[in-house]
């Protein structure tokens, strides 16, 4: 029998797919958690350095939402699914993404979802997708009943916060080139600096393969509100930030960051009409010279628009101890491994990159470092603002990459025309 049934409208399908797309940048699996009056999608990446969750307001987001408590799922239902399988349902023949020949008739009109489980019933996620043209497709996906892992965030501990328009933040992120791994946010008087860099060591003769090193200085006035310790350097994964800002910019609302010190999690949150989004990402970094000094600015009425987001999510399951929010025992252990923040500060050090490198070295020791932080493949290189016109791309076939990688060496090109037949 169906434990959970709900309906997604046309816009609901799009919003659901956007959320899943965002989640898929963190992990392969998504956890679904449903109660009588709440619906969560969440995931944690394999290295447990990033956690993402989307809370849907059941009464506003879903056309119809019904939770039937049964058997083991008395107060809540939970399961885990393969994200790509789920995304592909909502993409089916809609042609929304492919700008090519958009057939309006195959746009999804609505989607009825039923989740069945229990004694003598196959565990299935059943999606009935009704297209504009009257076609109905029914998909049955298997799922695994497993308790979701939530990361906790201690709002009391997070002394520092800022919030900014998500579109402004995305425009900043768009300036960062491919091949970089880290984003450092530091405050300096009335400016906030966003610096994107790579830590990969590169031999001298490959110096031209280094990625673009980008740094953006933003006036604090640009923020809706900000309250951060001066000279605090906090470093996060640029890949996570890209995933978050890309989704946040769709909603267009302000995005709020809350954090404390390096090696403690940062919370990024924003909300749209019926969805609250929360991300916890692990940080590294350096503390500045004067912890008492703050970079501060408050805008009347602009802050605290996201305060309805729960201070921390559910107090979790068996894997909690490995999550970014460690138990007190873990914090103790980590503090013993990390140098105390006060002594690690290097006020005379003007090279954030160097210090960040040091910090992240210690991060690898203290924290299970994320293995998947490779630069995005070249195909993902162009982001929204930077779309090249494809028509001018040369014709090429798949196995040509070898030639493409050939490098120019001035020293060896004494006879640059040697392979031209009978020329000049």
């Amino acid at each position, binding site marked *: 029998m169906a434990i959970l049934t709900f309906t997604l409208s046309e816009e609901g399908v799009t919003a659901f797919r956007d959320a899943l797309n965002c989640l898929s940048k963190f992990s392969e699996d998504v956890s679904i958690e449903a109660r009588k009056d709440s619906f969560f999608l969440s995931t944690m990446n394999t290295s447990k350095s990033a956690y993402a969750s989307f809370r849907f307001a059941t009464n506003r987001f879903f056309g119809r939402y019904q939770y039937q408590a049964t058997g083991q799922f008395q107060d809540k239902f939970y399961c885990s699914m393969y994200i790509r399988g789920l995304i592909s349902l909502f993409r089916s023949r809609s042609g929304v993404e492919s700008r090519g020949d958009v057939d309006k008739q195959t746009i999804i009109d609505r989607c009825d979802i039923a989740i069945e489980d229990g004694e003598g019933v196959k565990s299935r996620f059943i999606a009935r997708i009704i297209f504009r043209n009257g076609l109905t497709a029914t998909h049955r996906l298997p799922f695994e009943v497993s308790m979701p892992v939530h990361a906790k965030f201690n709002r009391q501990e997070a002394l520092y916060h800022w919030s900014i*328009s998500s*579109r*402004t933040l995305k*425009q*900043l992120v768009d*300036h960062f*080139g*491919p091949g970089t791994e880290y984003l450092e946010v530091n405050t300096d008087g009335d400016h906030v600096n966003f610096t994107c860099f790579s830590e990969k060591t590169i031999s001298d003769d490959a*110096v*031209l*393969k*280094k*990625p*673009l*090193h*980008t*740094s*953006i*200085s*933003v*006036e604090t*006035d*640009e923020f809706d509100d900000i309250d951060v310790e001066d000279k605090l350097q906090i470093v996060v994964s640029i890949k996570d930030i890209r995933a978050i800002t890309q989704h946040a910019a769709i*909603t*267009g*609302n*302000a995005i709020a960051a809350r954090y404390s010190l390096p090696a403690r999690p940062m919370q990024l949150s924003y*909300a*749209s*009409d019926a969805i609250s989004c929360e991300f916890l990402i692990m940080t590294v970094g350096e503390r500045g010279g004067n912890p008492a000094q703050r970079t501060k600015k408050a805008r009347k*009425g*602009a802050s605290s*628009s996201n305060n309805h987001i729960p201070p921390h999510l559910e107090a979790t399951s068996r894997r909690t101890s490995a999550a970014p929010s460690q138990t007190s025992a873990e914090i103790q252990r980590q503090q013993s491994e990390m140098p105390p923040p006060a002594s690690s500060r290097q006020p005379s050090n003007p*090279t954030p*990159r*160097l210090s960040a490198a040091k910090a992240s070295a210690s991060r690898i020791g203290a924290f299970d470092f994320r293995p998947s932080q490779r630069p995005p493949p070249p195909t993902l290189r162009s982001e*929204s*603002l930077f779309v090249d016109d494809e*028509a*001018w*791309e*040369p*014709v*090429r076939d798949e196995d*040509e990459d070898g*030639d493409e990688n*050939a*490098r*120019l060496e*001035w*020293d060896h*090109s*004494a006879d*640059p025309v040697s*392979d*031209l*037949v*009978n*020329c*000049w």
Partner: protein
Amino acid sequence: MRFHSDLKNIRTFAKLTAAFSTLEKLVWLRLSDETAHFTVVPDTGSQIWSTLPMDFLFENCTIQSAEPSNTINLELSLQPLHRALKSAQGSISASLRLTKKKGVPVLSMTITTSTKSSSKFGNAPPAAAPLKPPSSYDDPFGDVDEDFQAAGAEHTHLETSLRREHEKIITQDIPIRVLHPDTVASTVQPSLQEPDVHIQLPPLLQLKSISDRFTKLALASGGSSSKSPRLEISANMHGGLRVRIATETADISSAWTDLDNPQLDPAQLRVPIEEHPSTKFRDRGPDSWASIYVDGKDWSRVLSAGRLEGRVIACFCHNQSLVLYVYIPHYDDGAADDAVLTYHVQAYSA
């Protein structure tokens, strides 16, 4: 060694780097008081040689070098350069400076921009951008206000518009290698002959899509020689151009007519105009074709020059060489002289 300059014609500069990077990952840039040379020489394939007047891309420029005639030779990776220039498009101002960061030489681009003008529609004249009053008609992000209101946030229009005018400083550090004059001495431009036929090419997007189709056709039809199909390109002095592909199973050609064979300037010629090879080709009539074979994929990369939106003159030496002159118009200054790129197309005899 010092180099500092403000950037202008940023859109053109970005297009140039895009065209360069279809042929090679790296570019050799030689800066001097008067000229900027951009040279692209891949291991195999077509080469680009260009000499641009310094004021085509730069202004308020300072160069100091110990090298002869005050030149600076740099090798730089095109992808980061292109990316940085894209960042600078629509900015209020942008400048370039040769410097060292942590002991490593970089070309540091400093961009002053505002949130609004960094949008994709932000190609407004630089000076006007920050002063422009926000209006829901010309503001690409006019929908922002609506969204804010819909979400119940308490931003007033005034607040949002004020915030948009904040300037941001973006620094993009492009990795470079400073080249010694001895290193670059061995790279010399292929010599240029008096052409048998010179002709203005049809719109490059058209030429490219047909050429690409031929190349793909040859690739798809298989066979041992299909790894790199050769296209035959021919032109005459009577406005005719042909592109032809011949495989074991197919022989297709496309022809253009009524193209322009521009007049030569006798003052620029090494031989009297009546003895010039092109005069002889013209006299022999429309059946006299100068032909050359090109590699389909390389030709496709060359034709990416079309994104520069300039006139292209092709110079054929029958069975010997093909050189393209790509004229780059000034986007910011219509009255100024065009700059020219010289493409030495990798060519094969029959």
